[in-house]
């Protein structure tokens, strides 16, 4: 760091320059993170997994994939890893591109290596999309609860919300009544937003408007009670129920996992925001007249993002595990797509005849999830300002 300012500063400059060594946040983070060897290994595995997944997508999709995970060769079923294909029995289009079955074949003679590559991408997207959904919901609700939490919901707001939601529900049952309710709800919403019901200064508010403006509960209470409600559901059971009732699809699984795992993020973000909004720099920005949205996203969010990042990393790990568990119970990603979860659960029927069908996906899931967990924990330590000082 000394190398950057070799010349001794001129005397008049001394007070204008920062005297502390200049280290960006990123450098600080990296010096702490590097010391945690397990976390670095986790990061390396994570990057490898990411590259594998992208390579898997490129190599196994399209009309003429290099490695076709869907080719069925019944005469070549349950071959062990590194087996050489029996070229005499295969049509030219069925010969694996690598010349050997790198990870063996499964009970239909499909190349496990190709299927694992395809599954890497699926697992990656399941993890990232599910966590993405939960992070977006968590940041949004947590941010509102933390920043606007003290604002009070008035009775007219509640009435409007009830009208609108009842309208939507009724719309499905009897369109006419639903439409009427929706119309009323929309009028109420318009009235509230444009401030039509506001009493002009100087005039006594009428009984009706005082009644409508009576305070019910704060936004913070509302959102945190919602979190409490969601926490009452047994998560895996809820996911299982919804996935079983909805038509089988990879998107449903991502969405359901995302919608049932945002509560932790919401709590983190709310706690961070509650602490941050009392800090001097936020007061200073507000005094400068900066808008609320800019304060939230430009000034507060970067300071609140650390715990979110950590819980996102750990969340991806648990989403991959959840997907594997669902596959095991038969509710995973439907068959044409290979995922590590369903390769593993299909392979279990052949655990004695073809142990590689169980061990390859099992150990891969273990390694990837372990990498995410180690990386996440390392991230937590490195982003913790109390540890950074050392």
């Amino acid at each position, binding site marked *: 760091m000394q190398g950057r300012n070799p010349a001794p500063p001129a005397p008049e400059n001394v007070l204008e320059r920062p005297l502390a060594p200049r280290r960006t946040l990123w450098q600080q983070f990296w010096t702490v993170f590097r010391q945690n060897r*397990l976390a670095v290994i986790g990061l390396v595995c994570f990057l490898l997994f990411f590259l594998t997944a992208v390579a898997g997508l490129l190599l196994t999709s399209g009309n003429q994939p290099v490695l076709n995970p869907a080719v069925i060769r019944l005469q070549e079923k349950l071959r062990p890893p590194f087996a050489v294909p029996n070229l005499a029995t295969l049509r030219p289009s069925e010969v694996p591109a690598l010349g050997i079955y790198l990870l063996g074949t499964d009970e239909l003679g499909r190349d496990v290596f190709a299927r694992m590559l395809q599954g890497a991408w699926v697992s990656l997207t399941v993890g990232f999309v599910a966590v993405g959904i939960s992070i977006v919901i968590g940041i949004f609700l947590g941010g509102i609860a933390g920043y606007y939490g003290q604002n009070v919901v008035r009775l007219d707001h509640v009435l409007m919300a009830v009208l609108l939601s009842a309208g939507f529900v009724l719309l*499905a*049952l009897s369109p006419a009544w639903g439409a009427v309710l929706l119309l009323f709800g929309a009028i109420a919403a318009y009235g509230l937003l444009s401030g039509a019901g506001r009493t002009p200064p100087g005039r006594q508010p009428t009984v009706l408007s005082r009644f409508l403006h009576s305070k019910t509960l704060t936004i913070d209470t509302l959102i945190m*009670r919602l979190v*409490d*409600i969601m*926490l*009452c*559901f*047994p998560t*895996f*059971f*809820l996911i*299982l*129920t*919804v996935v*079983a*009732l*909805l*038509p089988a699809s990879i998107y449903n699984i991502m969405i359901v996992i995302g919608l049932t795992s945002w509560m932790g993020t919401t709590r983190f973000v709310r706690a961070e925001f509650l602490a941050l909004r009392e800090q001097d720099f936020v007061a200073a920005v507000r005094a400068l007249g900066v808008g609320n949205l800019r304060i939230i996203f430009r000034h507060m969010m970067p300071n609140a993002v650390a715990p979110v990042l950590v819980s996102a990393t750990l969340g991806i*790990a648990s989403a991959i*595990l959840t997907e*594997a*568990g669902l596959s*095991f*119970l038969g509710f995973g990603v439907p068959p044409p797509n290979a995922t590590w*979860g369903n390769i*593993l*659960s299909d392979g*279990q029927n052949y*655990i004695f005849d073809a142990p590689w069908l*169980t061990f390859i996906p*099992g150990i891969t*899931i*273990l390694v990837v*999830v*372990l990498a*995410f*967990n*180690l990386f996440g*924990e390392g991230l937590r330590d490195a982003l913790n300002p109390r540890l950074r000082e050392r």
Partner: protein
Amino acid sequence: MISFIGRSAIQKVITLFFVSVVSFLIIHLAPGEPSQVDPMNPKFTPEMVERFRRQFHLDKPLYAQYLLFYKDLFTGRTVSWKDNQAVLKKIWDRFLNSLPLFVVGTILTWTLSFPVGIHSAIRRGSLFDRGSTLVAYFLISIPGFFFAYLLIILVVTNFQVPVIGMQTFGMGDASPVHLVMNRIWHLLLPSILGATGGIAILSRYVRSQMLEVEGQDYIRTARAKGLPPDDVHYRHALRNALLPFVTMFGLILPGLIGGSVIIESIFSWPGMGRMAYEAILARDYPVILTVNFISAVLVLIGTFISDLLYMVVDPRIRL
């Protein structure tokens, strides 16, 4: 104190109401109907479907179904759509099956994770600490069913004992010792598997809590005034580190009804998790909703107890 109890009781009842509404809506607004579960079955004539729908109020509007369902639930008259058994009795029977798993698993979790966590916090950075950290991460990261199969193969090939199911069939006239040993062997693996995640997470938590306390000023004071290390660790640090765990006794409660679906499926254990899973497959709404409702009640009671315990244990907290 009393006002806290009253306030939180009201709050929890409101939460419970919303939970019941949400779970009811999730189940009933999902596409498909229980009367269509088996369209290929020739017995399911349109008249049958009609009778089925009328019998279980499926032809009524949604809010009426909701009221009828919870009226039945509170009077204990809910019956399963699949076999017409009383749901509460069914759940109770399965609950008794799951109970041993839960008890053994909880005992394992709490007796193993505390010594491990405390020890690795005191000897921070030692071989034991790093080893237990790595093992904990392994246990958190391994897919449960994969681990289950590994353990089954290991145990069955090395010890030659049966592990699947609750007990071996056809043991009618075996000696009592044999019967008990048989039950214990069957119990051991699923409860160990059920406990692994808990052990890993709890021991990590104990460790970090202990480390947090060991960094406090009063520990330095205790050490500075020349107390023996054991006194410092176990009398000054441990007592304070244990505070948050007292409250976790309340959080055990929801586990009573959880029962792992995956572990019970692997071991063919006729417990709660399996029953819930079969109910989901058969779209047996009363069973699904009742399990959900009871589990929500247990979660709420659990958090309530843990709040109370916190107040009793930690005099700094006055809610």
